[in-house]
């Protein structure tokens, strides 16, 4: 508990609204460019990488709350966003977000966790539908005679893994571009400073 409180410095708290706003605006940009992905957890991932898992989790949770104002179904996926924040943060603490190949592994783990949490939510709460174009995939698998669980898992594996892995790469590239002076003020910014000097 004490460790969690220690993460919430004034600086870390100020990162949360910015992370949330990035999630929302990036999500809108994706829609504007008509890219068939979500990419609406990039802010959560950046915050989790530099400020730790719990700050990341709050960023994810608040983002879904704000998304929920305009689309209430998003509220059901709050645990997914929070878990993404926690997983990225915990792995970042272990130094798993400092090299490209490590980021790829982190991306896979985040996607896996997201699939595990999002699938039951989609099946139980929304009867397998998500209200997006990716439902076509669910329908195709269902039409081939598979069960709803198999269908939703297949759809999530496709969508979530592409989405989460791409998001974490974008997050990683952006963290890499932050100045050392800025990173030094963050709870876990030092991971990304040392690497720069080594290279």
């Amino acid at each position: 508990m004490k460790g969690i409180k220690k993460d919430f410095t004034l600086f870390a708290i100020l990162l949360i609204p910015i992370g949330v706003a990035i999630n929302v605006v990036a999500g809108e940009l994706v829609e504007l460019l008509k890219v068939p992905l979500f990419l609406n957890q990039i802010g959560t991932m950046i915050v989790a990488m530099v400020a730790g898992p719990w700050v990341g989790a709050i960023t994810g949770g608040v983002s879904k709350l704000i998304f929920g104002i305009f689309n209430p179904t998003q509220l059901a996926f709050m645990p997914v966003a929070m878990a993404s924040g926690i997983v990225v943060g915990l792995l970042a603490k272990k130094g798993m977000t400092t090299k490209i190949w490590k980021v790829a592994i982190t991306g896979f783990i985040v996607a896996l966790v997201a699939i595990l949490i999002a699938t039951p939510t989609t099946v139980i709460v929304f009867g397998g539908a998500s209200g997006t174009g990716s439902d076509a995939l669910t329908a195709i698998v269902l039409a081939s005679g598979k069960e709803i669980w198999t269908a939703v898992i297949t759809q999530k594996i496709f969508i979530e893994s592409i989405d989460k892995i791409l998001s974490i790469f974008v997050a990683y590239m952006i963290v890499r571009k932050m100045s050392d002076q800025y990173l030094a003020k963050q709870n876990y910014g030092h991971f990304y400073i040392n690497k720069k000097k080594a290279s």
Partner: protein
Amino acid sequence: MEKLRTFILNLYPTTKFFITLFLMITPLLLPGYLYSYLVPVLCLFIAMIAGKTKLFVDIVFKGLLSIVIMIFLLQAFFYPGDTILWTWKIFSIKQEGIDFSVQLTSKILAVGSAIVLFFQITKINDLARSLEILGVSPKATYVLSSALNIIPEMRMHLLRIMDAQKTRGVETEGNLRIRLKAFFPALTPLILSSFSSTDEKAITLESRAFTARTKKTSLHQLEKTKSDSVVRVLLLILFVFILIWRFFL
């Protein structure tokens, strides 16, 4: 009408929350779908009185309609059942699937529209203030209200950056690869510049004793009125009545 409108809009945020909670929980408690389908209509009615009809309808249509249609399509065709209503080649609509989707979508629509209504009739600043009065840390409410304030500002900033990148020759239209490539040059400057603004924000907040451990005063005044107690008591009576009717009769 005008009187009713100010009555609803001037309710205390937590009272509005209780109304929402009531509208969310009762459809889950009561069997059948008739009442659940009534809830969105009721929400629409309240939104109309509050003068938020357009926004309410917009959000409900955009956020909920697509998922409701998808549930109907998926469940009607693929829910396991034997009572076939209509067939086309290998696909068939089954009665069981329709029943299931009617049940499920009624609950989703009820809960969803109650949430939409809540955010339409409650100002986030009021909500934040009432949470503070309830004892939630001002840091938490700051996060909530500041996030909402930053979003429009950041949206403008994004549009400016995109214009700038377009002048530089970054293409934002074309096939998927080109559009995906445009994502990065638009987003990176936006994120980096907004993160670097935290420095100034920290200084500003610190100079206003944001982290000082004293009781904070607020310019934002919120008061509970008589109508709040009336609404709360009414809701409680209705809720107890429904509970008794559902489980004891």
